[in-house]
């Protein structure tokens, strides 16, 4: 019998701690497939952030630096400047990247650091128990927005893929989702583009992935998938927002 589906080589053969239906697992897989398909595992340095993806080193079979909360782009900057011949990527949640780490991401992007940023937007702080994130949607209830996010009090959600696309240093910025086979195929293509951007030394590449957090949304996995298409995608449209790298 021919094997048509297997674990990517740059993922370890271990069980993850992710909740059932969590999209972090799918995103890990797509990133690992991209690394495998480019054959760059032996050159790759991952930078983990603080959030549910903190155990990146436990799942990826590549060298990893664990960054302080929000600082992954600065850590990646240091690593890439010291080793320009390596492929450096960060993997960050929305609290990490768009709240505490806003300064680091904006400035790394603006400097056009030759790194790839994988940004997992699940509209909540997963690891700490579902508090309001900078991407929590208007009206969305979380443990710290019990009456729903009020944009007069909390501001409107950040649309990071669009925001970063305004910066000259950014070579590639796109938003994808992994809630359907079609979206997964597109997401894979975009993640590969982002790594290709770095391999070809074309500058900063950014992928925002709309992701589910069934646990903190209080939903079953399928319901959570549906929320991504019904609520998130209309508010955070999928697409390529900047592509000066011509990928």
């Amino acid at each position, binding site marked *: 019998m021919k094997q048509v589906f297997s674990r990517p080589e740059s993922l370890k053969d271990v069980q993850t701690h992710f909740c059932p239906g969590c999209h972090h697992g799918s995103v890990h897989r797509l990133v690992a497939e991209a690394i495998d398909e480019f054959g760059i595992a*032996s050159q*790759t340095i991952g930078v983990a952030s603080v959030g549910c993806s903190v155990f990146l080193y436990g799942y990826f*079979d590549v060298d990893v*630096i664990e960054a*302080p909360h929000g*600082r992954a782009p*600065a850590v990646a900057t240091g690593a890439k400047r010291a080793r320009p011949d390596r492929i450096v990527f960060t993997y960050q949640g929305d609290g990490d990247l768009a709240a505490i780490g806003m*300064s680091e991401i904006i400035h790394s992007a603006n400097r056009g650091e030759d790194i790839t940023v994988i940004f997992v937007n699940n509209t909540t702080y997963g690891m700490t128990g579902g508090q309001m994130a900078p991407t929590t949607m208007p009206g969305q209830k979380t443990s710290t927005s019990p009456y729903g996010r009020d944009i007069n009090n909390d501001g409107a959600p950040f649309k990071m893929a669009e925001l970063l696309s305004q910066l000259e240093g950014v070579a590639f910025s796109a938003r994808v989702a992994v809630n359907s086979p079609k979206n997964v195929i597109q997401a894979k293509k975009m993640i590969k583009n982002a790594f290709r951007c770095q391999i070809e030394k074309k500058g900063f590449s950014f992928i925002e992935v709309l992701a589910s957090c069934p646990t903190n949304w209080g939903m079953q996995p399928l319901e959570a998938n549906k929320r991504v298409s019904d609520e998130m995608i209309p508010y955070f449209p999928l697409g390529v927002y900047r592509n000066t790298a011509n990928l």
Partner: protein
Amino acid sequence: MNNHKTEKVFLKGNEAVAMAAIEAGCRCYFGYPITPQSDIPEYLSRELPKVGGTFIQAESEIGSINMVLGAAATGARAMTSSSGPGISLKQEGISYMAGSELPGVIVDIMRAGPGLGGIDASQADYFQATRGGGHGGYRIIVLAPASVQEMYDLTMLAFDLADMYRMPAMVLADSVIGQMKESVTPNPRPKTELPPKPWVVRGKAAGEPQNVVKSLYLGDGEMEAFHWKMHARYQELADKECRWEEFMTDDAELIVTAFGSPARIAKTAISMAREAGMKVGLLRPITLFPFPKKAYATLSESCKRFLSIELSTGQMIDDVRLSVARDAEVAFYGRPPGAGSLPTPEELFVQIRKNYQAAA
């Protein structure tokens, strides 16, 4: 470097730090402007590109220390510098570096006061530097230059010690030492035997072990074991790396102790006291962590009165008290930092005379 020139050069303390960093092989500098240390990033922005290095004026001190963390994780020698408010922001990153056992050099040209404070010479960040500064119970190596030559030499030593002990090292100076100009012999990098760095992130080939630079320890007993490991390393530092200077201590009946620029002023005052027939000496710690406890213990066997002079209301004095023999007394004279607060030699002479008489 083979084409090394060791003719004397006339330099500011801050420039000596920057020059030494390049000689020490540092090719990654990340900083943010703040007085009184901005000569360091200015010098390195000019000189690092000439030697193939990378200079980034980061978005903040938080950004810059985390760039040091990232570069250090790849095995590169990396440095940042700042002063009070910026050093406070760096504490998060320094704590992560300590927790990840990463070497790296942080230069702190202290300024006065909490908050925005002022730019006058200060030693009020002694506690922040020598107690770790950030969260989690760690220490870093702290070196205290008292001349422009030492700014040069100790910066180079900081890189070596950081690599040898896998921990951040700080050069802690007051703004007088940072800003003043003296002639310096730019010594070539010493040929220190350094441990290899098999732990760096480098991109692992198939079959090679995965390297992870991290400070998260969740397994049963892991964190506790880490603390004891670091404790033992700090002990090893204390055993092997204490450095200090003694001046006229042999027959001293009063020992003045001070670091940085007050130590220089004290030397002048001690010479005045010697001329006036008083047996006074100076013990100047050069490493503040590890603190040269044994030097104090030994001297206090015969000399029973010490006078700690600091540009603060008294911080190092705690370490002095913990180091001297139980029957030795430690007096204090401090000028908390601020405009016009740098003591004169005459002023210190008066304090020395007062304490000398009390000792007699």
